[in-house]
């Protein structure tokens, strides 16, 4: 039993927006895998629910000129079995596999994962690395904004009153010219929240294993109050051979992250893990970049 104050199940996105606009306390609920847990714990903030689960406007995935559009109601299970998403955003699929367990992935949505503002959202690091955009619709109309900057603090995002996230948009990894990698460091291999999540995207100037880093994008979860990109480390890596870039990143990371000490893990331990994961993910992403670049060359020579 849940202590709902009000529960609405709109039949269209328009109705959902109207219901949210009418009640400033109402929250949209998609998969419910976070909200129902909080409601069970007795949080009053979640007592008024607008259930957007299954709204047809939020479903489905499509591609348009190399841009992947993922309906915010897409479950992680659907994402993982989508050949389209696997082709265009393999990094996101790699991260989706780390979300909880099969039952949760069958109901939790990518939209909920982003909009609940969690610092440990598994999809946040890949979406930050891939420079994803968010398509929101609200009482004042729609807008398209970058994900970077959307997270304001723990549990807080730049979602305006009455707004609903309609889709997430990502330019394909191939068009962005990136090799990517994501790993979640957690205390167990499933059914866990991240201690640290790390995603890297790398473009090298050539396909040598120690090639010059043309571009590095690095993102973490749980390394700061929100999921973060690492501008200082990214800048430090640019133009360096990979092995030097990795060292430069380790030096610069302090500027980009602020892991905290809690009973779950000490700050110095988290910082050590951040550095270790950064190195491993950058190397993996570079390796993938080099091997896919090699594949493309082979394809051209045939």
């Amino acid at each position: 039993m849940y202590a709902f104050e009000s529960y609405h199940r709109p039949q269209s996105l328009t109705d959902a927006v109207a219901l949210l606009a009418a009640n400033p306390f109402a929250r949209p609920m998609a998969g419910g895998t976070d909200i129902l847990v909080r409601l069970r714990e007795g949080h009053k903030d979640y007592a008024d629910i607008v259930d957007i689960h299954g709204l047809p406007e939020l479903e489905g995935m499509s591609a348009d000129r190399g841009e992947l559009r993922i309906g915010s109601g897409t479950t992680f299970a659907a994402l993982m079995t989508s050949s389209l998403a696997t082709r265009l955003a393999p990094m996101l699929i790699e991260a989706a596999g780390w979300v909880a367990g099969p039952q949760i992935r069958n109901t939790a949505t990518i939209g909920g994962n982003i909009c609940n503002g969690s610092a440990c959202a598994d999809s946040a690091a890949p979406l930050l690395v891939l420079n994803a955009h968010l398509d929101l619709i609200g009482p004042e109309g729609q807008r398209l904004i970058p994900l970077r900057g959307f997270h304001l603090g723990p549990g807080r995002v730049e979602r305006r009153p009455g707004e609903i996230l309609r889709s997430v948009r990502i330019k394909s990894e191939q068009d962005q010219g990136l090799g990517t990698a994501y790993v979640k460091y957690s205390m167990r291999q499933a059914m866990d929240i991240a201690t640290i999540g790390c995603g890297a995207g790398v473009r090298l100037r050539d396909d040598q294993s120690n090639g010059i880093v043309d571009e590095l994008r690095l993102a973490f979860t749980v390394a700061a109050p929100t999921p973060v990109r690492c501008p200082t480390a990214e800048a430090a890596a640019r133009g360096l051979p990979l092995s030097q870039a990795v060292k430069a990143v380790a030096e610069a990371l302090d500027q980009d992250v602020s892991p905290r000490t809690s009973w779950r893990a000490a700050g110095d331990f988290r910082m050590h893990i951040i550095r270790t994961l950064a190195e491993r993910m950058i190397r993996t992403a570079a390796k993938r970049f080099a091997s896919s670049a090699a594949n493309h060359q082979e394809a051209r020579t045939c």
Partner: protein
Amino acid sequence: MSIGQPVTRLDAEAKVTGRARYTEDLLPAGVLSAVYIRGSVAHGRVLDMDLSAALALPGVEAVFTHADVPRLLYAPAGHPFSLDPDHADVADRLLLTGHVRFHGDEIGVVVARDELTAQRAASLVAVSYEELPVLTDPREAMAEEAFAIHPGGNIVKQDGFSVGGDVDALLAQADVVVEGEYQTPVTQHCHMEPVVAHAYMEDMERITVVTSTQIPHICRRVVGQALGLDWSRVRIVKPYVGGGFGAKQDVLLEPMVAFLAWKLGRPVRMALTREESMITRTRHAMRIRGRAGFARDGRLLAMNMDAVSNTGAYASHGHSVVSAGGGKLCSMYPHAAVRFHAATVYTNLPIAGAMRGYGSPQIIFACECLLDEAAKALDMDPLDLRRINAGRPGDVNPRSGKPIETHGLADCLRLGRERFGWDERRAAAQITQAAPEIRRGVGVACFSFNSGVYPVGVEISGIRLTLNQDGCVTLQAGATEIGQGADTVFAQMAAAVLDLPVTSLRVVSTQDTDVTPFDPGAFASRQTYVVGPAVKAASLELRARILNHAALMTGYPASALDLKAGSLVATRQPARVFMSLKELALDAYYHKNRGGQLTAERSVKTRSNAPSFGCTFVEVEVDIPLCRVRVTDMLNVHDCGVVINPITAKGQAQGGMAMAIGWALYEELLVDPRSGRVRNNNLLDYKMPTFLDLPDLDVAFVQTAEPSGGFGNKSLGEPPLLSPAPAIRSAVWNATGVKADFIPLTPKALFPLFRDAGLLEGAR
């Protein structure tokens, strides 16, 4: 012969199809829900409780506080009653308390039309406290000047024993003396079905409690004691149980739901949330100091152990736990002298009680860590060191003074060495042990355990068999199925003696203390061992009655008749079939002039206690920069006597091994030392391992034939959990050169050790 056959569990299909009915599936119409009001300090006295808002909430039926309950102190521990008052469990509980002894202690209870209303009402009760000092560390609690959590002081009990020789003299003579101090965490059972019970009255006198318990007959007695009722005024019904692991070898909600049904005259249920279940009973954290002396050739001469066991806010099983752990150790390396001393201490932590292994996992952890210290000091293969010291059949257990008839430990080590590929893996792991990132290591550890509680407690078991009209036999046992497969092995035993297919046995899985034969229940890995003789005796008696009736029907003497494969045959010519058992049964029931319902009931006391043995071989991979240990392979080898059912035995072993990996690497209930509040009493923050965290778990058996077991069998319930943790700790030491004297070996705990050992270059 059904013994040793891989019989499918009798309840497998009912459970996987969801047809099996558990306590909450049996709620009576009109049942009310009750929720505890819990203390929000770890230690304090309740000064005032304002119930007005709770009582005003629509749907609330009643609120009771500590002022409303019987002033009868009771002991909830699930032990058989003891005739010796000095051996009785510590009676330190009231149904509700005004002296809050841990964060979440039960100070009141709300009864309402539904659970949500009851929860809301409970949250509306304003409580004021006089706060008292919070003691979470047993060393502080043992101090002379420490605030007394209970009137008798904070030491529940302390005692010890010394057997097998003069320990001090032997330590002085030893070529090598090693020592260590080891710590184990507070952990929790995490049984799938939470703690649930409901109660109702069908007349003015008697209370029925339906509950998820391991110990229905003990539960009846304790409910009677807690409420001041004659024990037979209480009836306990135990349907299918979704796991207990010892948490339900304790009387939990039953006295409260009985009290509420009695007070209100209406059915009342309680179902603890996972968060509540996780602070209801735990495993004792222990700190164990040990010294052991060895001869140059590796012989263990003497071991001295001193254990402090943290039992939390109330005694529950109290001192029995650490005491049992020490006592069960002595049959493993029986040539050594052992001196053991232990103290059990109250603190303001949740209550520690019985949990799979019952003190042995902690004590064996310390013992096996000491052996690894010695292997290092003596530069010996840790497996060889154990082989040298393992007991042999006929050795005398220095603690009990009795010969150990079957001692398969040396054979377990031999079989495991081969099957696991110990020598090859150890050599292969060594090559990785200078690598900067990924290293491998191997470890081995042994255990000994018992097969019941005798002579510490009584061992009594009852079985009733009834021949049905269709020739099937109904079996009722006082011993309980709680998920471990007890019903199936009882059926196999009866089928073996009666020479019937197992499918001809109908086991009544529900225990109902009004009708079920007496047996204290599922604990101490006792049931297969002590129920076996009762099944055998009852089956032989039923068989004799069947043959007597066959004699009446055929005119031949019973001695000329035999029961074979479900038919009555001539003893000398088994091919000559007189009739089927069904034909005989119909005659016995319905012939107007002869026979009757053929039943047999036997209550048997077991006056032996065979030790069981085994060992764990493990390989780990350590990702040093990530401070993470992964178990890559694990083998348990068990001497549990004759294996009654190889499928369920293997499952039992694998379950214990998985639980032990959790204890060694993942799980601990974390308590804020200042507030006494448990931080992670939920299954997200309490890191029980998942399937992805476990390797393939290999299991092998060395089958001895234990003469005292009804069917040659010994214990297997708890043993699989006992030896993996020290083996894992040893393997991590082998892999990294870093020796941890504690568990769990979580990444955050290994980080400072690895850093200090210089393994994490660049880590600040």
